[in-house]
Structure formats: C-alpha cells, structure tokens
C-alpha cells in the first residue's frame, strides 16, 4: 500500500475533529477529499504531513509507519504538503522561496537542475524570480507554492484548496498543472471546496462530514451521485 490512513482520531484540545477516518491512496493516483468547512479536510492533511499528531490511529507510507514522526522527517520520505492560506514566504523573492524549497537538496548541482526543471514547467516564475513573492498574483503565488513543493522530489503531493481565491480561468490552468504533475508519476491528494473541479481531476474521492468519511468511491460515479450533487455541486 502506498499511503494508508487507519482509524484516525485527531483532537484539537479536547475537541475531536477527526473521528475514525480511514483512507487509501494508490501510487500515481489522484485522490480528492471533499467536504464542507470544518469537516476535517485540512486536519487530515496536517496529520499526514506530521504538523499534527493523531490521538489514535496510524498513517502508513510506502510500507513504513509515519504517524508520530515530525513534519521535517516526513517530507524527507517523499510527502510534500502545499498548505492552505499563506503558502509562500511573502517578504522574500521568488528565487529565495525556491531556494528554501530546495533545502533538502544538499548537492548544489542537483538544486540547480531542480530550478531549471521548475522554470521549464513554470516559465512565469523565471520571469518573476527577483520579484517579491507577496507581489505576485494569486495564481502565481499558488504556482510558486506548488513549484516549491516539487523541489523536494516528492512521491506524493498533498494540496490544500489550490483553487481558493483564483479566477475561473486560473482555476482551469491549475487543473492542467495538477494533471501534468500527476502524469510525471506523482500521486496527489487534493482537498477542495471546488468539488466539481476536484471530481473531474481525481480518480477516486472521499466525502468527509464532521470528521467522518460518509462516502467513498470512483470520482466519476460520485459526480453523478444525487447526495453529492445536492450537497457539494449545487444541485
């Protein structure tokens, strides 16, 4: 099994936020987690990437147990997390953001090759590399966050609401970027409020409600499910 979450229970203080969640991600797969605000989507990602320690349950990755490890160890194993909210280091330049992203690449030549690869895929970042990251547009900031996550050569990328606050055109572009990354053999866990886009991109989907998985299955089937339609796709 590539990534497996078993009976996860997570607390914030005394409040139980995740109440026994299990999910699986296969290699080279796009899996989406959809659900309303407060359903526990972000907490799930934070627990997998080690920013939050579960009270019970386990996370396994590539045959090893990773729950309980610190975030900086987990990223070394090949899980990159593109967090929601302030994803970039706003006062620093684009290049400095990327240099920090390449932190794990101790070999300079490798790092330079990594930057070249990034600039091939995101030429706009090359144009803006001296610009202050905070002055980029929303879409460019999101690209920078994704590019930075890619620099660690992950096997799995977890993206937390990459389409939030972006115009429809840029959301479409983001969809292309996600497909492109996946076509390079990188698995993706996509957390989205924009369920329509997420279900279009993903092979499988999990629907969370109040910290529990209420529905799982093929993304295409899910898009036609009456319950999902009425709750997340606006009728």
């Amino acid at each position, binding site marked *: 099994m590539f990534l497996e979450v078993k009976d996860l229970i997570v607390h914030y203080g005394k409040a139980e936020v995740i109440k026994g969640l299990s999910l699986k991600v296969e290699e080279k797969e796009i899996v989406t987690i959809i659900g309303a605000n407060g359903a526990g989507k972000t907490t799930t990602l934070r627990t997998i990437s080690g920013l939050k320690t579960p009270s019970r349950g386990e996370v396994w990755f590539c045959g090893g147990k990773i729950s309980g490890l610190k975030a*900086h160890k987990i990223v070394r194993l090949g899980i990159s*997390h593109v967090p929601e909210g302030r994803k970039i280091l706003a006062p620093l330049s684009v290049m400095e953001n990327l240099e920090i992203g390449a932190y794990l690449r101790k070999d300079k030549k490798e790092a330079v090759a990594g930057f070249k690869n990034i600039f091939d895929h995101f030429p706009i970042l090359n144009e803006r590399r001296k610009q202050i990251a905070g002055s980029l547009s929303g879409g460019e900031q999101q690209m920078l966050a994704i590019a*930075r996550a890619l620099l660690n050569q992950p096997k799995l990328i977890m993206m937390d609401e990459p389409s939030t606050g972006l115009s429809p055109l840029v959301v479409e572009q983001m969809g292309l970027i996600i497909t492109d990354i996946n076509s390079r053999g990188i698995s993706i866990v996509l957390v989205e409020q924009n369920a329509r886009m997420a279900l279009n991109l993903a092979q499988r989907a999990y629907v969370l409600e109040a910290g529990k998985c209420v529905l799982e299955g093929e993304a295409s089937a899910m898009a036609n499910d009456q319950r999902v339609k009425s709750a997340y796709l606006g009728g």
Partner: protein
Amino acid sequence: MKLPNNGANHKTNRYKLLAIIIAVAALVVLPFCIESGYIKHLIIMACIGTILGMTFSMLYSAGLITLGAAAFYAVGAYTSTVLVMYAGLSFWVALPLTVMISAIMALGFGALFVRNAGVAFVIISLIFAQVIVIAIGQAEFLGGWGGIIGIPRPDSLGPVEFATKHDFYYLILAFLLLVVVVYTALYSSRIGRAWRAIKLSPNLAGTLGINAYRYRLLAYVIGSTTAAVAGCFYAHYFQNITPGAFSGWLSIYVQLYAVLGGLEFYILGPAIGAVIMTFVPEYLRVVKEIEPIITGILLLIIILFFPGGILGTIRNSANVSFEGFDARVKKIKASLTGKR
C-alpha cells in the same frame, strides 16, 4: 545558484564593496583622530554594544526574541575572570576556554529553552538572565554583589601590550569584524535561509524539511557564545565587574539597539542603534535619574511611529519618494497626451 547578473546589479555590488572598504578604513584610523580617552572609551563600549545587538538579531533572525541578551555576556565575563584570576591562566588560554564553556552551557540551556518559541521563550530568556545575575550576586567566590576588581589586562601579544585604549580598540574591532563576516556568511547560507523560513512560518518550514528546533538551537548557541566573548573582552578591558553591570536594563538596551537601528537589518541595525544609544545617554548625563523614562519614551515612539527603525524608515521613505516620482512622471505624461 549562479544567476546572470545585469549591469545595474554589478554596479551596486561595486558601490557596496567600496562603501565597506571605506567604512573599515575609517574604523581603523578612527582612534588617531580622537584625543579624548573618554570618547575612546565610549567607542569601545559602542563596539561591544554592537556585538551584543547583533546577537539579539541573530536570535531574532530565527524567530526567537530574547529579553536576556545580557545572560551570556555575564557568563563570559565571569568565566574568563575566574579562569585568569583563580586558575592563573593567560587571557589567551582563557578566551578559547570561555568560548567552549559558554557554548556547552548555551547548548544545554538552549535545548530546554527553544522548545517553545514565541512568548514562552521571551519570558524564559528574561527569567534566565535575572537568575544568572542573582546567582552571581549570591556567590561569595565570585565576589557577591560587590563584584571582582583588579582583573588583569590581556597578556601582551608580541609588541602589543593592551595597556592602552588604543590597543583594546583594535582587539575589539577585530572581533567585531570577525562577527560581521561570520554572521553575514551565515545569513546568506543555507542555514540563514532556513532561519528566515522558520521566522516567517515554522509550520511551513517543517513541511519543507527544516527542523525548526535544531536551527533555533543553533542560533541560540551562536548568539550566546558571541555574547560570552564580548563579556570576556569587557571584563579584561573594564578590569572590574559587578552583577549590576549585567542587569535586566542591559538586556533591554541591547534589544533597543536592534529595534532602533532597524530590526530587519541584522548587521547594520545594531551598529547604528548601539552607537546612538551609547553616545546620546552619555550626553544626557545631567538627567541620569530620568534616563529610564527617556529610554522608555524613545522605545514607545519607535514602536508606534517607526516600527522599521532608522534604517527601515529610510528605506521605506526612499521607496515612497521613488514611487512618488514615477507617479508624477505618469501624471505629466497623461496631461501632455490629454492636451493633444
């Protein structure tokens, strides 16, 4: 990564280098231009203040705000004094030993302290500095509250005797420049980038593979050890030390050096702040009793109206005036095309 530099950048780099050479040259000839021993003393104290301010900035660069910058300054001063006066070692043997002892101490205490960044660390650092002062004051063999007097000057090094303020100035200047070079190198290295990421967002740094705890500890150890060396120089320069010299006031002053000069300028900020805060209060001697009030008001004014400090304010106003210039050019262009 080597990036293609355009011409403008080359030019600014050359100007920067020129400015640095002139500044260092000015610092080297400075004592020859000054007659008064009193002013020479103030310059030496400003150099020590600059070093302490830079240690504050070092911790700040890693997201740690210390209110106990004087703690290891005291540790260094007393360690070296004990080694020289009680163990009979030469200053030049005591110095590296002081570095080692204070580094080990910083590692041990830091390992406990930096677990909690944020407010917890601020409070712990403040308490630790106070505890150090009180512990020294209670220790009979360290001279208690009366301190230790008659600390010898450093042994002469060849022809250099360290008997005069002149020689001492060069000793402290050499160390100051060493700190500047090492710190600058650190800030622009992979370590410095990790610090910046941790300061801006510890969680994000974690997801990028950076061990925030270890890097904070590194900053704490480097900063504390530097402060200890400054303390060592101070003890053998001033030749007497009392616990009172390392009180909480000093820690607040050190913080003020960095804030006044400009918090985001890790090297130049403390230098400017320390020079101002060393000379201005000296010339306000007449009002020594109300000096803390003036210092407090000054701190309030900076925080409320000039949060970027002197350098930050200069940089911002320079940007604004450039923007203003661009806007005016646009306006004129618009009015010209409008007339047509």
